[in-house]
């Protein structure tokens, strides 16, 4: 099951040229661009690991594309996303975030139903991949 998170996730995966164009858009707006990665695909997992430091004061996408290439070399079997952080007053938050790399196979999610008091049902989603220890979740595909 293809994970759809952030911008452009219903489009086919972006090419490097398209990613560079989006990154340049962020830089032209004055946002700091970050690269993050994870192997826990749960939609509520907001704490992704950061690749290096946030990249402030860049002017051109080439530097970020270089970092992305480095990140892919190490964590090419995981999800990688690029986010643009707007530090201007009143925003101070992520303005744009999109996935730039995903595992070759995404096993998807199991839906658990828990019967509670009365006839209530509690639902939870459980990523099949998350059943394995961190770091090994997508490695053998």
């Amino acid at each position, binding site marked *: 099951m293809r994970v759809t998170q952030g911008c452009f996730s219903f489009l086919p995966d972006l090419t490097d040229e398209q990613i560079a164009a989006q990154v340049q858009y962020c830089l032209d707006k004055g946002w700091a661009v970050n690269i993050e990665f994870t192997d826990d695909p749960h939609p509520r997992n907001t704490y992704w690991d950061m690749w*290096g*430091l946030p990249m402030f004061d860049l*002017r*051109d996408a*080439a*530097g970020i594309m*270089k970092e992305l290439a480095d990140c892919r070399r190490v964590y090419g079997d995981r999800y990688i996303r690029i986010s643009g952080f707007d530090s201007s007053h009143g925003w101070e938050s992520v303005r744009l975030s999109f996935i730039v790399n995903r595992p070759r196979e995404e096993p998807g999610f199991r839906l658990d139903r828990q019967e509670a008091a009365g006839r209530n049902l509690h639902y939870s989603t459980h990523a099949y991949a998350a059943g394995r220890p961190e770091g090994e979740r997508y490695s053998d595909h």
Partner: protein
Amino acid sequence: MTQAQEQIKEQIRETPPATIDLRHEFADLGIGDVLDQLDSELIGLKPVKTRIREIASLLLVERIRQKMALATTFPTLHMSFTGNPGTGKTTVALRMAGILHKLGFVRRGHVISVTRDDLVGQYIGHTAPKTKEILKKAMGGVLFIDEAYYLYRPENERDYGQEAIEILLQVMEQQREDLVVILAGYGDRMEKFFQSNPGFRSRIAHHIDFPDYSDAELLWIAELMLQQQNYRFSPEAREAFTRYIGIRKAQPLFSNARSIRNALDRIRLRQANRIVAKLDRTLTADDVMSIEAGDVLASRVFTKGGGGTGEGR
């Protein structure tokens, strides 16, 4: 990809044109404007202007080759500026970014100006991230390393400068189209630096030596500086300043345009002092703009002696 590039690609796909109007191409790129601006704003510096002219011509030819569907390669544009103090190395480097941007060699045209401190770290493992961060900032523009010879400290074999040099070299080689590196420094020390880092010398295509200015050029520079600050020499003051240049040049620690700028700053001080000395009068704009011979002649350079070693004669 810009629209212009798109159009070029379209043309190639159709049929490469057999002939191309050179003048039209020249006007199209705006090379003429860039070169004219350079000629009018920078005085002297013949070798520098020649080299920029060559680079501009190369761009023009590359564009035409592209249109004719001939193979093109991105030229190496890393440069090294050597010369005595005050010959305009930094000024030209800062301007070079704008020129390369206009000519389409760099995408953004900003300059990141750094020295050793910005590239080399304090402890093990500090240098690589520091250098890489600077390189990332410089992508799409020009990285200007002033006094580059400080990067290499042969007397200390544990110096982290070598690490910064290796990272720099790697990026200079692999990402030639992403950034242009300009090294600057005094001639003799840069020579030593290149001797101990032969990799650097071979990766830099343009070694440009900045010559010292002649007396006439220095006077010209002085007048341009004054004009920019809305001052001017009276005819006698100009004559005095010509003599000043001749004497100052022969003295030790002369640093070309920088010495001229400092001299002008001191002359302005003396002019202000002269004006304020007589309070009971009305001033015109002309009074506060003009620099008199007395302002120049009060300089210590004249009293120290008429040239030569700086000792009284």
